[in-house]
Structures are given as structure tokens and as C-alpha cells.
């Protein structure tokens, strides 16, 4: 979400602190997604204070069967920067989806999206990511 481990840790701790305080005062949130909504809100606040990504129309490519090999050549920091540079709510959708821990209903709830919006954001991101992969790690063409 933030592309910065230090900031992410601060948000994580602040979120847990808030949850602990609420629990101590008997105001523990009933919403089981509360922790993640709170963390997302804090991430958005933090990212608004930092540098803003330029609004650029990224190219899109069709997904390639070779994409897994391209992705394996990536450094995880590159992926983190790519996702954290995505505009909201695409960034939240990608972060939650690729964590692999949330079902669709939870993602929709936390990111405040509808199914068709989530589907469009993910499809768009895949195409853009594939284009970026193709530009960064061109496939070897066999002639």
C-alpha cells in the first residue's frame, strides 16, 4: 500500500494501538474487517502526505503464458513500488487481492467496491503490469 516498510510498520502499530484502546474501553468494533479498513484509511492518510504518483495512462498488454517467468525475475521491492504507485482504489484492490488472504466479499467490504469495479480494476492492472513486465523483461523471440 505504501511502498515503504517503515511507514507500513508505523501504520500497523498505530492500527493495533487503536484497536487495543477500543478493546480496553469496551468499544471493540463488531465489524470483523474493522482492523483492515482502519489500516487502509491510515495508509491513505500517510500516502496523501507523501509524493503523489503521476496520473499516467499505462499501456496494456494481453496476459502472456510466460508472465510467471517474468514475474520470478522481479525483485519484490519492484512489485511493491508498482502496486503502491497505482491510483486508489486500484492500489487497495491489488494489495488485498495479491495478499491471497481475503475472499472477494472481504475485499469488496474493505475497499468499498462493487464486484464489477473490482473485476475491472484487477483486469486493468493485469494488462498494465504485463505491459510493464514486457518492457522491463522482454520476452526472447524465437525466429
Amino acid at each position, binding site marked *: 500500500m505504501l511502498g515503504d*516498510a517503515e511507514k507500513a*510498520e508505523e501504520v*500497523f*502499530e498505530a492500527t*493495533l494501538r487503536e484497536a487495543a484502546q477500543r478493546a480496553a474501553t469496551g468499544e471493540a468494533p463488531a465489524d*470483523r*474487517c474493522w482492523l*483492515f479498513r482502519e489500516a487502509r484509511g491510515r495508509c491513505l492518510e500517510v500516502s496523501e502526505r507523501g509524493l503523489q504518483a503521476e496520473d499516467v495512462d499505462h499501456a496494456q498488454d494481453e*496476459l*502472456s*503464458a510466460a*508472465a*510467471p517467468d517474468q*514475474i*520470478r525475475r*522481479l525483485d*519484490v521491492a519492484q*512489485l*511493491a513500488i508498482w502496486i503502491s504507485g497505482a491510483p486508489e482504489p486500484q492500489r487497495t484492490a491489488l494489495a488485498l*487481492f*495479491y*495478499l*491471497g*488472504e*481475503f*475472499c*472477494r*466479499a*472481504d*475485499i469488496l467490504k474493505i475497499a468499498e467496491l462493487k*464486484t*464489477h469495479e*473490482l*473485476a*475491472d480494476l*484487477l*483486469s486493468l492492472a*493485469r494488462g498494465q*503490469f*504485463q505491459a510493464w513486465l514486457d518492457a522491463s523483461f522482454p520476452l526472447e523471440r524465437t525466429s
Partner: protein
Amino acid sequence: MKTARLSRRQQLLIACAPVNEQPIADRNMRAAVFRARDSEEFKIQQSFDRAVVDLVQTVPVPSAVAEWLSSEKAIEQPKWTWKRAAKNPAVVAVGIAVLVIAAVFAIQFAEHLHDFPGSAHARKLLSVARSPRSVLLDPVRTEAGALSDLFFMKHNLEHYEVPPEFADFQTLGCRVFDDEEAGRVAQIWVVEKHMQFFLFPAERDTKTGIAPDFSNWRFVEQEGWTGAVQQRHGVCFMAAVRGDATQLAPYLNKLHSH
């Protein structure tokens, strides 16, 4: 994705299809994945997503954070509770249907709780009693108990006798008519409370052909009228009055109080 095989809704779901190996709890998602599973495009999308997820899994987690997340799932799936189940629209619909069916059965059971052989005929004759249609009657002014001889002599109706509780009531008139269901019916009008008496054949058991008598009073109600019925010698007597059973109670207890 072969769009011809997938609906628009399923295409949207496929775009959000999970890549983990756990069973998919969402039925719609499960159906969409099942239909798309052989599609080349879906396989490529899944391998693409899985590669990204695998890469994300390599993100180093700070030790302080790892302690918090070491043993717990990121998000606990909602537990099954009666409260949640009660909010399920399907459960609500089934519940309402069961309640309606139960209510219908309960009403029918309550209506027929005090039924007895001949109660259907008695109810029908209560409708006759409340009918405003004018009928031709013999103006006979005597005591009701004296009419049994008239019924026997004139109409050959044996045991058409008015019980002692109502035998000394002054009559206004009477008639005998054929009813499709009840058979030969004797109807008597009396002065007291504009009551009407009915005498009609008891309903016989279809298997045994027997109509067991009962000397206690049994009640039927129909559209604001009440009838007290007693059966002797295979003939039912019904005293019918406008109102409820309390209108008849003083007469029925008369013999016992004497």
C-alpha cells in the same frame, strides 16, 4: 476467456477468482471457476496471479509484526450462528411458509376439535335457521314436546322427539322438508328467544352403519348462530339461537338445577 460459455456476471467473478488452494466458499464464484477451468485464458490468468502472490509471500515481514501474525489467519471467517442463519432470506422464506402452513393446520384443527358425527349437517341447518328466506310453515301453537306425535302421524318420522329441556316451549309453527345432505328435517319455531329446533337423522358411520347416540350437549357455531345438539334413537335434536353458547346455557342446565 470464452465469453460464449460465461455470463457477464461470471466473467466479472472470474476476473476476481482466488488463486489459493482452499475450497471456494462463494457458490457463485465456485460455479464460475468450474465453468472457466478449462479455458486457456483463465489458466494464464491464474498462473499470472499465482506468480504475483508467490512473489508477495516473499516480502520480508518485520519480526515485531510477525509475532502478531504468526498463528492467526489474516481474517477470521464468520462463524455459523443461529442469529446469522435467521437473517438468511432462504431461511426466512422457509420459516414464513412453515408458519403459514402451521397456522392453517391449527385453525382447521381448532375448528374441528369439537366435531362430532352430524356436526356438518348441524352447521348447514344453522345456515337454514339464519336464512331470511320466507318458508311455508304449519302454524301450530302448542308445546314443542307435543309435536313428536304430529311428526310420526303425519310424516312417519319416528323418534323425532324434543328433549325434556325444551319440551314445554311454546311453538309458533313447524315444517318438515327434505335436505340433500341432512335428509328429512323437522324445523320448529318457538316463542322463546325466537329459537328454532331442528330434528334430523343422525349421521351413520360409513363402515359400521351405526350412529352412536350421545345424551350430552354438543355445540356448533355458524355465522353468529349457535346450536346445541343431542342425539337419541338415531335422531339429532338441535336447538338453534342467535348468539353464542351462553344464550342456551340456562336451558341446558335447567333439568340439572331442578
